[in-house]
Protein backbone atom coordinates (compact mmCIF):
# COMPACT_ATOMS: atom_id res chain seq x y z
CA UNK A 1 0.00 0.00 0.00
CA UNK A 2 2.74 2.40 1.10
CA UNK A 3 4.80 1.60 -1.99
CA UNK A 4 1.82 2.13 -4.25
CA UNK A 5 1.16 5.55 -2.73
CA UNK A 6 4.83 6.46 -3.14
CA UNK A 7 4.73 5.32 -6.75
CA UNK A 8 1.71 7.56 -7.32
CA UNK A 9 3.61 10.55 -5.94
CA UNK A 10 6.57 9.82 -8.21
CA UNK A 11 4.46 9.34 -11.31
CA UNK A 12 6.09 10.50 -14.56
CA UNK A 13 4.71 14.00 -15.15
CA UNK A 14 4.20 13.21 -18.83
CA UNK A 15 1.21 11.03 -17.82
CA UNK A 16 -0.29 14.10 -16.16
CA UNK A 17 0.26 16.13 -19.35
CA UNK A 18 -1.56 13.42 -21.29
CA UNK A 19 -4.41 13.33 -18.77
CA UNK A 20 -4.72 17.13 -18.90
CA UNK A 21 -4.79 17.01 -22.71
CA UNK A 22 -7.62 14.45 -22.67
CA UNK A 23 -9.57 16.50 -20.11
CA UNK A 24 -9.16 19.62 -22.27
CA UNK A 25 -9.93 18.04 -25.62
CA UNK A 26 -13.05 16.19 -24.39
CA UNK A 27 -15.24 19.32 -24.02
CA UNK A 28 -14.07 20.59 -27.42
CA UNK A 29 -15.47 17.43 -29.00
CA UNK A 30 -18.49 17.15 -26.65
CA UNK A 31 -19.40 20.61 -25.22
CA UNK A 32 -21.21 20.19 -21.91
CA UNK A 33 -22.55 23.73 -21.53
CA UNK A 34 -21.69 24.06 -17.83
CA UNK A 35 -20.97 27.78 -18.26
CA UNK A 36 -23.74 30.35 -18.38
CA UNK A 37 -23.92 32.71 -15.40
CA UNK A 38 -22.58 36.22 -15.12
CA UNK A 39 -21.28 36.86 -11.64
CA UNK A 40 -18.74 39.66 -12.05
CA UNK A 41 -20.01 43.21 -11.59
CA UNK A 42 -17.23 44.57 -13.83
CA UNK A 43 -18.53 42.43 -16.71
CA UNK A 44 -22.08 43.71 -16.19
CA UNK A 45 -20.70 47.27 -16.15
CA UNK A 46 -18.84 46.62 -19.41
CA UNK A 47 -22.07 45.33 -20.98
CA UNK A 48 -24.15 48.21 -19.60
CA UNK A 49 -21.71 50.81 -20.92
CA UNK A 50 -22.08 49.57 -24.50
CA UNK A 51 -25.80 48.96 -24.03
CA UNK A 52 -26.27 52.61 -23.02
CA UNK A 53 -24.45 54.05 -26.04
CA UNK A 54 -26.66 56.01 -28.43
CA UNK A 55 -27.11 55.20 -32.10
CA UNK A 56 -24.39 56.78 -34.27
CA UNK A 57 -22.07 57.36 -31.31
CA UNK A 58 -18.38 57.00 -32.13
CA UNK A 59 -16.18 54.60 -30.18
CA UNK A 60 -12.52 53.59 -30.42
CA UNK A 61 -11.93 49.83 -30.19
CA UNK A 62 -8.30 49.15 -29.31
CA UNK A 63 -7.13 45.67 -30.33
CA UNK A 64 -3.74 45.50 -28.64
CA UNK A 65 -2.64 41.90 -28.37
CA UNK A 66 -0.63 39.48 -30.46
CA UNK A 67 -1.35 35.86 -31.43
CA UNK A 68 0.28 34.48 -28.26
CA UNK A 69 -2.75 35.52 -26.18
CA UNK A 70 -5.37 35.31 -28.90
CA UNK A 71 -7.44 32.55 -27.20
CA UNK A 72 -8.12 34.79 -24.21
CA UNK A 73 -8.68 38.11 -25.93
CA UNK A 74 -9.98 37.50 -29.44
CA UNK A 75 -13.38 36.24 -28.13
CA UNK A 76 -13.66 39.44 -26.07
CA UNK A 77 -12.88 41.66 -29.06
CA UNK A 78 -15.29 39.78 -31.31
CA UNK A 79 -18.10 39.91 -28.74
CA UNK A 80 -17.50 43.63 -28.06
CA UNK A 81 -17.51 44.50 -31.78
CA UNK A 82 -20.71 42.50 -32.33
CA UNK A 83 -22.32 44.31 -29.41
CA UNK A 84 -21.18 47.73 -30.69
CA UNK A 85 -22.56 46.96 -34.15
CA UNK A 86 -25.84 45.79 -32.64
CA UNK A 87 -26.13 49.19 -30.94
CA UNK A 88 -25.45 50.84 -34.34
CA UNK A 89 -22.39 52.60 -33.00
CA UNK A 90 -19.61 53.78 -35.34
CA UNK A 91 -16.37 51.97 -34.57
CA UNK A 92 -12.76 52.93 -35.17
CA UNK A 93 -10.44 49.94 -34.69
CA UNK A 94 -6.83 50.75 -33.96
CA UNK A 95 -3.75 49.05 -32.61
CA UNK A 96 -0.34 49.88 -31.17
CA UNK A 97 0.91 46.27 -31.26
CA UNK A 98 2.78 45.04 -34.34
CA UNK A 99 1.37 41.50 -34.04
CA UNK A 100 -2.26 42.63 -34.01
CA UNK A 101 -3.02 43.69 -37.64
CA UNK A 102 -3.40 40.05 -38.73
CA UNK A 103 -5.85 39.39 -35.90
CA UNK A 104 -7.81 42.54 -36.75
CA UNK A 105 -8.00 41.31 -40.35
CA UNK A 106 -9.46 38.01 -39.07
CA UNK A 107 -12.16 39.90 -37.16
CA UNK A 108 -12.78 42.22 -40.10
CA UNK A 109 -13.48 39.31 -42.43
CA UNK A 110 -16.31 37.91 -40.33
CA UNK A 111 -18.01 40.24 -37.82
CA UNK A 112 -18.95 43.24 -40.04
CA UNK A 113 -20.45 40.95 -42.72
CA UNK A 114 -22.59 39.19 -40.10
CA UNK A 115 -23.87 42.55 -38.87
CA UNK A 116 -24.29 43.96 -42.37
CA UNK A 117 -21.87 46.82 -41.71
CA UNK A 118 -20.01 48.71 -44.38
CA UNK A 119 -16.33 49.67 -44.27
CA UNK A 120 -15.80 53.44 -44.21
CA UNK A 121 -19.44 54.10 -43.31
CA UNK A 122 -19.97 52.10 -40.12
CA UNK A 123 -16.43 51.22 -39.14
CA UNK A 124 -12.82 51.87 -40.06
CA UNK A 125 -9.52 50.14 -39.29
CA UNK A 126 -6.54 52.39 -38.70
CA UNK A 127 -2.96 51.54 -39.62
CA UNK A 128 -0.64 50.14 -36.95
CA UNK A 129 1.00 52.95 -34.99
CA UNK A 130 4.10 52.12 -32.94
CA UNK A 131 4.11 55.22 -30.74
CA UNK A 132 1.05 54.98 -28.54
CA UNK A 133 1.96 57.94 -26.34
CA UNK A 134 2.30 60.30 -29.29
CA UNK A 135 -0.88 59.00 -30.94
CA UNK A 136 -2.96 59.24 -27.76
CA UNK A 137 -1.74 62.77 -27.12
CA UNK A 138 -2.20 63.89 -30.72
CA UNK A 139 -5.75 62.57 -30.91
CA UNK A 140 -6.69 65.04 -28.18
CA UNK A 141 -5.72 67.93 -30.48
CA UNK A 142 -6.48 66.60 -33.94
CA UNK A 143 -7.38 62.98 -34.67
CA UNK A 144 -6.15 63.26 -38.27
CA UNK A 145 -2.65 64.29 -37.22
CA UNK A 146 -2.32 60.90 -35.54
CA UNK A 147 -4.15 58.94 -38.22
CA UNK A 148 -4.07 60.42 -41.67
CA UNK A 149 -4.60 57.13 -43.48
CA UNK A 150 -6.37 53.88 -42.62
CA UNK A 151 -4.84 50.40 -42.75
CA UNK A 152 -5.59 50.16 -46.47
CA UNK A 153 -3.93 53.48 -47.26
CA UNK A 154 -7.18 55.47 -47.78
CA UNK A 155 -7.40 59.02 -46.49
CA UNK A 156 -9.41 58.94 -43.27
CA UNK A 157 -10.69 62.52 -43.25
CA UNK A 158 -13.88 62.69 -45.23
CA UNK A 159 -14.96 59.09 -44.64
CA UNK A 160 -18.66 58.95 -43.59
CA UNK A 161 -17.70 57.03 -40.43
CA UNK A 162 -15.54 59.96 -39.30
CA UNK A 163 -18.24 62.61 -39.75
CA UNK A 164 -18.02 65.17 -36.91
CA UNK A 165 -15.02 63.49 -35.29
CA UNK A 166 -12.01 65.67 -34.55
CA UNK A 167 -10.92 65.02 -30.96
CA UNK A 168 -11.85 62.90 -27.93
CA UNK A 169 -14.65 65.36 -27.18
CA UNK A 170 -16.56 63.97 -30.16
CA UNK A 171 -16.25 60.36 -29.00
CA UNK A 172 -18.44 58.35 -26.65
CA UNK A 173 -15.61 56.29 -25.24
CA UNK A 174 -12.78 53.81 -25.67
CA UNK A 175 -13.04 50.02 -25.53
CA UNK A 176 -9.54 48.64 -25.08
CA UNK A 177 -8.83 44.90 -25.38
CA UNK A 178 -5.23 44.23 -24.45
CA UNK A 179 -2.72 41.90 -22.90
CA UNK A 180 -0.18 44.69 -22.42
CA UNK A 181 -0.09 47.83 -20.29
CA UNK A 182 -2.02 49.72 -22.97
CA UNK A 183 -5.17 49.87 -20.85
CA UNK A 184 -3.19 51.72 -18.15
CA UNK A 185 -2.04 54.16 -20.83
CA UNK A 186 -5.60 54.82 -22.04
CA UNK A 187 -6.71 55.44 -18.45
CA UNK A 188 -3.78 57.72 -17.58
CA UNK A 189 -3.25 59.65 -20.84
CA UNK A 190 -6.82 59.81 -22.11
CA UNK A 191 -9.47 58.74 -19.59
CA UNK A 192 -8.32 60.77 -16.60
CA UNK A 193 -6.89 63.69 -18.58
CA UNK A 194 -9.71 64.29 -21.06
CA UNK A 195 -12.63 62.71 -19.17
CA UNK A 196 -13.15 60.01 -21.78
CA UNK A 197 -15.04 56.92 -20.51
CA UNK A 198 -12.81 53.83 -20.77
CA UNK A 199 -13.79 50.16 -20.56
CA UNK A 200 -11.38 47.30 -21.08
CA UNK A 201 -10.78 43.65 -21.65
CA UNK A 202 -7.62 42.01 -20.43
CA UNK A 203 -5.95 38.69 -19.67
CA UNK A 204 -6.77 36.85 -16.46
CA UNK A 205 -3.22 37.51 -15.22
CA UNK A 206 -3.59 41.29 -15.51
CA UNK A 207 -7.19 41.42 -14.32
CA UNK A 208 -6.47 41.81 -10.60
CA UNK A 209 -4.19 44.79 -11.15
CA UNK A 210 -7.12 46.83 -12.48
CA UNK A 211 -9.11 46.55 -9.24
CA UNK A 212 -8.08 50.04 -8.04
CA UNK A 213 -9.11 51.64 -11.37
CA UNK A 214 -12.51 49.92 -11.21
CA UNK A 215 -13.03 50.88 -7.58
CA UNK A 216 -12.24 54.48 -8.47
CA UNK A 217 -14.42 54.47 -11.62
CA UNK A 218 -11.36 55.40 -13.71
CA UNK A 219 -12.27 52.25 -15.59
CA UNK A 220 -16.00 51.76 -16.09
CA UNK A 221 -16.02 48.04 -16.89
CA UNK A 222 -13.62 45.13 -17.31
CA UNK A 223 -13.55 41.67 -18.89
CA UNK A 224 -10.91 39.40 -17.38
CA UNK A 225 -9.59 36.51 -19.44
CA UNK A 226 -11.70 33.75 -20.93
CA UNK A 227 -14.05 33.77 -17.94
CA UNK A 228 -14.84 37.45 -18.44
CA UNK A 229 -15.32 36.81 -22.15
CA UNK A 230 -17.67 33.93 -21.49
CA UNK A 231 -19.79 35.91 -19.01
CA UNK A 232 -19.97 38.78 -21.49
CA UNK A 233 -21.02 36.42 -24.29
CA UNK A 234 -23.80 35.16 -22.02
CA UNK A 235 -25.01 38.73 -21.46
CA UNK A 236 -24.94 39.54 -25.18
CA UNK A 237 -26.89 36.35 -25.90
CA UNK A 238 -24.38 35.13 -28.48
CA UNK A 239 -22.33 32.24 -27.06
CA UNK A 240 -19.10 31.63 -28.91
CA UNK A 241 -15.45 30.65 -28.37
CA UNK A 242 -15.10 32.00 -24.81
CA UNK A 243 -18.16 30.04 -23.63
CA UNK A 244 -16.98 26.78 -25.17
CA UNK A 245 -13.53 27.40 -23.66
CA UNK A 246 -14.96 27.73 -20.17
CA UNK A 247 -16.09 24.06 -20.25
CA UNK A 248 -12.50 22.98 -20.82
CA UNK A 249 -11.24 25.38 -18.12
CA UNK A 250 -13.78 24.06 -15.59
CA UNK A 251 -12.75 20.44 -16.16
CA UNK A 252 -9.01 21.15 -16.16
CA UNK A 253 -9.29 23.20 -12.95
CA UNK A 254 -11.21 20.32 -11.38
CA UNK A 255 -8.41 17.94 -12.40
CA UNK A 256 -5.76 20.21 -10.87
CA UNK A 257 -7.73 20.53 -7.61
CA UNK A 258 -8.23 16.73 -7.43
CA UNK A 259 -4.52 16.12 -8.05
CA UNK A 260 -3.46 18.67 -5.41
CA UNK A 261 -5.87 17.22 -2.84
CA UNK A 262 -4.93 13.61 -3.65
CA UNK A 263 -1.20 14.19 -3.39
CA UNK A 264 -1.58 16.13 -0.14
CA UNK A 265 -3.72 13.37 1.40
CA UNK A 266 -1.16 10.76 0.29
CA UNK A 267 1.66 12.82 1.83
CA UNK A 268 -0.29 13.06 5.11
CA UNK A 269 -0.96 9.30 5.12
CA UNK A 270 2.71 8.51 4.46
CA UNK A 271 3.81 10.96 7.16
CA UNK A 272 1.47 9.32 9.70
CA UNK A 273 2.74 5.84 8.82
CA UNK A 274 6.36 6.96 9.19
Amino acid at each position, binding site marked *: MKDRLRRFLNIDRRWLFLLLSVVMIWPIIHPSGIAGRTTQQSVKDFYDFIENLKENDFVILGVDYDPSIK*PELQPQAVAALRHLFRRNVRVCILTFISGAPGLIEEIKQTVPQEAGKEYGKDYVVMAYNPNYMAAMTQMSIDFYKAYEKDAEGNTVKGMPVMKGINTYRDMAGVVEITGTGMLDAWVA*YVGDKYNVPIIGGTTAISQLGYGPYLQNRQLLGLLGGMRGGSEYETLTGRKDKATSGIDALNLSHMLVIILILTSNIILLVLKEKN
Partner: protein
Amino acid sequence: MENSLSVILGGWLSAGITIFLFSFLYKDNPLFKIAEHLYLGVGMGWWFIVLLYGTWIPKAYEPFMQGEYLLIIPVLLGISLVTQFIPRISWVSRYGFTFIMGYGAGLVLPLNLATDFMAQIGGTIKPFAAIASMSAGEFINYFLIAAGAVCVLTYFYFSVEHKGFIKKASNIGIYFLMIYFGASFGNTVMARFSLLYGRFDMLYDFSGARYAFATPVIILLTVCFFVYRHIADKKKAGITKTAKAE
Protein backbone atom coordinates in the same frame (compact mmCIF):
# COMPACT_ATOMS: atom_id res chain seq x y z
CA MET B 1 -8.32 25.64 -56.03
CA GLU B 2 -5.48 28.00 -55.19
CA ASN B 3 -7.40 29.26 -52.21
CA SER B 4 -8.11 25.79 -50.86
CA LEU B 5 -4.47 24.79 -51.37
CA SER B 6 -3.26 27.80 -49.40
CA VAL B 7 -5.83 27.04 -46.68
CA ILE B 8 -4.60 23.44 -46.44
CA LEU B 9 -0.96 24.53 -46.43
CA GLY B 10 -1.66 27.12 -43.72
CA GLY B 11 -3.44 24.51 -41.61
CA TRP B 12 -0.62 21.99 -41.97
CA LEU B 13 2.00 24.59 -41.11
CA SER B 14 0.09 25.86 -38.09
CA ALA B 15 -0.81 22.40 -36.77
CA GLY B 16 2.69 21.09 -37.48
CA ILE B 17 4.51 23.86 -35.61
CA THR B 18 2.11 23.57 -32.65
CA ILE B 19 2.58 19.80 -32.40
CA PHE B 20 6.35 20.08 -32.82
CA LEU B 21 6.48 22.64 -29.98
CA PHE B 22 4.27 20.46 -27.77
CA SER B 23 6.58 17.50 -28.47
CA PHE B 24 9.05 19.09 -26.04
CA LEU B 25 6.75 17.96 -23.22
CA TYR B 26 7.76 14.40 -24.10
CA LYS B 27 11.45 15.22 -24.46
CA ASP B 28 13.83 17.55 -26.28
CA ASN B 29 14.03 16.63 -29.97
CA PRO B 30 14.98 18.00 -33.43
CA LEU B 31 11.33 18.69 -34.37
CA PHE B 32 11.02 21.05 -31.41
CA LYS B 33 14.28 22.76 -32.37
CA ILE B 34 13.05 23.30 -35.94
CA ALA B 35 9.80 24.88 -34.69
CA GLU B 36 11.66 27.01 -32.12
CA HIS B 37 14.08 28.44 -34.68
CA LEU B 38 11.30 29.01 -37.20
CA TYR B 39 9.35 30.94 -34.57
CA LEU B 40 12.28 33.23 -33.81
CA GLY B 41 13.09 33.81 -37.48
CA VAL B 42 9.50 34.45 -38.55
CA GLY B 43 8.98 36.74 -35.54
CA MET B 44 11.97 38.88 -36.46
CA GLY B 45 10.95 38.99 -40.12
CA TRP B 46 7.40 40.03 -39.26
CA TRP B 47 8.65 42.73 -36.89
CA PHE B 48 10.98 44.14 -39.57
CA ILE B 49 8.31 44.23 -42.28
CA VAL B 50 5.71 45.82 -39.99
CA LEU B 51 8.16 48.54 -38.91
CA LEU B 52 9.32 49.15 -42.47
CA TYR B 53 5.88 49.42 -44.05
CA GLY B 54 4.00 50.65 -40.96
CA THR B 55 6.44 53.28 -39.73
CA TRP B 56 9.47 54.05 -41.86
CA ILE B 57 7.80 54.38 -45.25
CA PRO B 58 4.52 56.14 -44.29
CA LYS B 59 5.85 58.21 -41.38
CA ALA B 60 9.36 59.13 -42.55
CA TYR B 61 10.15 58.34 -46.21
CA GLU B 62 6.89 59.41 -47.91
CA PRO B 63 6.40 62.72 -46.03
CA PHE B 64 10.08 63.56 -46.53
CA MET B 65 9.79 62.98 -50.27
CA GLN B 66 6.74 65.24 -50.29
CA GLY B 67 8.77 68.11 -48.91
CA GLU B 68 8.49 67.79 -45.12
CA TYR B 69 12.24 68.25 -44.69
CA LEU B 70 12.06 69.00 -40.96
CA LEU B 71 11.40 65.29 -40.46
CA ILE B 72 15.13 64.80 -40.85
CA ILE B 73 15.56 65.88 -37.19
CA PRO B 74 13.56 63.04 -35.55
CA VAL B 75 14.90 60.60 -38.16
CA LEU B 76 18.50 61.50 -37.26
CA LEU B 77 17.71 61.29 -33.56
CA GLY B 78 16.27 57.83 -34.17
CA ILE B 79 19.25 56.69 -36.23
CA SER B 80 21.62 58.02 -33.55
CA LEU B 81 20.39 55.19 -31.26
CA VAL B 82 21.93 52.62 -33.62
CA THR B 83 25.40 54.06 -32.97
CA GLN B 84 25.29 52.16 -29.67
CA PHE B 85 26.61 49.20 -31.65
CA ILE B 86 29.74 51.10 -32.76
CA PRO B 87 31.80 51.80 -29.60
CA ARG B 88 33.89 54.58 -31.24
CA ILE B 89 30.87 56.82 -31.92
CA SER B 90 28.42 55.39 -29.40
CA TRP B 91 28.35 58.80 -27.63
CA VAL B 92 26.13 60.07 -30.48
CA SER B 93 23.29 57.88 -29.19
CA ARG B 94 23.08 60.09 -26.09
CA TYR B 95 21.29 62.78 -28.14
CA GLY B 96 18.54 60.35 -29.10
CA PHE B 97 18.25 58.94 -25.59
CA THR B 98 18.19 62.44 -24.07
CA PHE B 99 15.23 63.34 -26.23
CA ILE B 100 13.40 60.08 -25.39
CA MET B 101 14.08 60.51 -21.66
CA GLY B 102 12.97 64.14 -21.58
CA TYR B 103 9.86 63.58 -23.68
CA GLY B 104 8.93 60.38 -21.83
CA ALA B 105 9.49 61.72 -18.34
CA GLY B 106 7.67 64.97 -19.06
CA LEU B 107 4.63 63.17 -20.37
CA VAL B 108 4.55 60.14 -18.12
CA LEU B 109 5.46 61.48 -14.68
CA PRO B 110 2.66 64.01 -14.08
CA LEU B 111 -0.04 61.83 -15.64
CA ASN B 112 0.98 58.64 -13.89
CA LEU B 113 1.34 60.46 -10.58
CA ALA B 114 -2.19 61.80 -10.99
CA THR B 115 -3.69 58.46 -12.08
CA ASP B 116 -1.79 55.91 -10.03
CA PHE B 117 -0.92 57.91 -6.94
CA MET B 118 -3.14 60.88 -6.17
CA ALA B 119 -6.32 59.35 -7.58
CA GLN B 120 -5.74 56.12 -5.66
CA ILE B 121 -5.19 57.95 -2.35
CA GLY B 122 -8.36 59.91 -3.01
CA GLY B 123 -10.23 56.73 -3.98
CA THR B 124 -9.25 55.03 -0.71
CA ILE B 125 -10.25 57.94 1.55
CA LYS B 126 -13.19 59.51 -0.31
CA PRO B 127 -15.80 56.80 0.38
CA PHE B 128 -15.55 57.52 4.15
CA ALA B 129 -16.97 61.01 3.53
CA ALA B 130 -20.34 59.28 3.08
CA ILE B 131 -19.96 57.03 6.13
CA ALA B 132 -23.38 57.97 7.55
CA SER B 133 -25.25 56.72 4.49
CA MET B 134 -23.16 53.55 4.05
CA SER B 135 -24.58 50.06 4.46
CA ALA B 136 -22.70 47.66 6.75
CA GLY B 137 -21.42 45.71 3.71
CA GLU B 138 -20.12 48.85 2.03
CA PHE B 139 -18.41 49.96 5.22
CA ILE B 140 -16.64 46.60 5.62
CA ASN B 141 -15.59 46.72 1.97
CA TYR B 142 -14.12 50.24 2.14
CA PHE B 143 -12.58 49.59 5.56
CA LEU B 144 -10.82 46.46 4.26
CA ILE B 145 -9.44 48.41 1.28
CA ALA B 146 -8.17 51.27 3.45
CA ALA B 147 -6.77 49.00 6.17
CA GLY B 148 -5.16 46.73 3.55
CA ALA B 149 -3.50 49.69 1.82
CA VAL B 150 -2.11 51.06 5.11
CA CYS B 151 -0.89 47.65 6.37
CA VAL B 152 0.82 46.76 3.06
CA LEU B 153 2.49 50.18 2.95
CA THR B 154 3.66 49.63 6.53
CA TYR B 155 5.24 46.34 5.49
CA PHE B 156 7.33 48.20 2.89
CA TYR B 157 8.22 51.07 5.27
CA PHE B 158 11.76 50.38 6.44
CA SER B 159 12.68 53.73 8.04
CA VAL B 160 11.59 52.54 11.48
CA GLU B 161 12.24 49.24 13.22
CA HIS B 162 9.38 46.76 12.78
CA LYS B 163 8.33 46.14 16.39
CA GLY B 164 5.21 46.68 18.48
CA PHE B 165 2.27 48.18 16.59
CA ILE B 166 4.29 48.61 13.35
CA LYS B 167 5.18 44.90 13.38
CA LYS B 168 1.55 43.89 13.90
CA ALA B 169 0.38 46.16 11.07
CA SER B 170 3.11 44.90 8.72
CA ASN B 171 2.25 41.27 9.58
CA ILE B 172 -1.38 41.95 8.61
CA GLY B 173 0.01 43.53 5.44
CA ILE B 174 1.72 40.23 4.63
CA TYR B 175 -1.67 38.46 4.75
CA PHE B 176 -3.14 40.99 2.32
CA LEU B 177 -0.16 40.47 0.02
CA MET B 178 -0.49 36.69 0.28
CA ILE B 179 -4.17 36.85 -0.65
CA TYR B 180 -3.28 39.01 -3.66
CA PHE B 181 -0.47 36.69 -4.77
CA GLY B 182 -2.72 33.64 -4.32
CA ALA B 183 -5.50 35.17 -6.41
CA SER B 184 -2.95 36.32 -8.95
CA PHE B 185 -1.42 32.84 -9.22
CA GLY B 186 -4.88 31.28 -9.60
CA ASN B 187 -5.64 33.69 -12.42
CA THR B 188 -2.27 32.91 -14.02
CA VAL B 189 -3.08 29.18 -14.05
CA MET B 190 -6.47 30.00 -15.59
CA ALA B 191 -4.82 32.18 -18.23
CA ARG B 192 -2.30 29.49 -19.17
CA PHE B 193 -5.07 26.89 -19.47
CA SER B 194 -7.00 29.30 -21.69
CA LEU B 195 -4.02 29.52 -24.03
CA LEU B 196 -3.66 25.73 -24.03
CA TYR B 197 -7.35 25.42 -24.82
CA GLY B 198 -6.86 27.84 -27.71
CA ARG B 199 -4.18 25.63 -29.27
CA PHE B 200 -6.22 22.44 -28.76
CA ASP B 201 -9.27 24.11 -30.26
CA MET B 202 -7.18 25.09 -33.27
CA LEU B 203 -5.75 21.57 -33.59
CA TYR B 204 -9.30 20.21 -33.50
CA ASP B 205 -10.30 22.59 -36.30
CA PHE B 206 -7.34 21.44 -38.40
CA SER B 207 -8.22 17.78 -37.93
CA GLY B 208 -11.10 17.95 -40.42
CA ALA B 209 -11.26 17.17 -44.15
CA ARG B 210 -11.04 20.92 -45.00
CA TYR B 211 -7.39 20.86 -43.90
CA ALA B 212 -6.68 17.37 -45.29
CA PHE B 213 -6.67 15.89 -41.75
CA ALA B 214 -3.55 17.86 -40.79
CA THR B 215 -3.65 17.23 -37.01
CA PRO B 216 -4.07 13.41 -36.91
CA VAL B 217 -1.58 12.86 -39.73
CA ILE B 218 1.10 15.07 -38.13
CA ILE B 219 0.55 13.50 -34.69
CA LEU B 220 0.90 10.05 -36.25
CA LEU B 221 4.09 11.05 -38.09
CA THR B 222 5.53 12.60 -34.92
CA VAL B 223 4.80 9.43 -32.94
CA CYS B 224 6.44 7.35 -35.72
CA PHE B 225 9.48 9.65 -35.54
CA PHE B 226 9.78 9.11 -31.76
CA VAL B 227 9.38 5.32 -32.10
CA TYR B 228 12.03 5.25 -34.84
CA ARG B 229 14.41 7.35 -32.72
CA HIS B 230 13.79 5.15 -29.70
CA ILE B 231 14.63 2.00 -31.68
CA ALA B 232 17.68 3.64 -33.29
CA ASP B 233 18.95 4.88 -29.89
CA LYS B 234 18.50 1.40 -28.40
CA LYS B 235 20.38 -0.17 -31.29
CA LYS B 236 23.18 2.39 -30.94
CA ALA B 237 23.39 1.75 -27.20
CA GLY B 238 23.56 -2.01 -27.90
CA ILE B 239 26.42 -1.58 -30.39
CA THR B 240 28.38 0.63 -27.97
CA LYS B 241 27.84 -1.91 -25.17
CA THR B 242 29.08 -4.79 -27.36
CA ALA B 243 32.10 -2.75 -28.49
CA LYS B 244 32.97 -1.92 -24.88
CA ALA B 245 32.62 -5.60 -23.86
CA GLU B 246 34.93 -6.64 -26.69
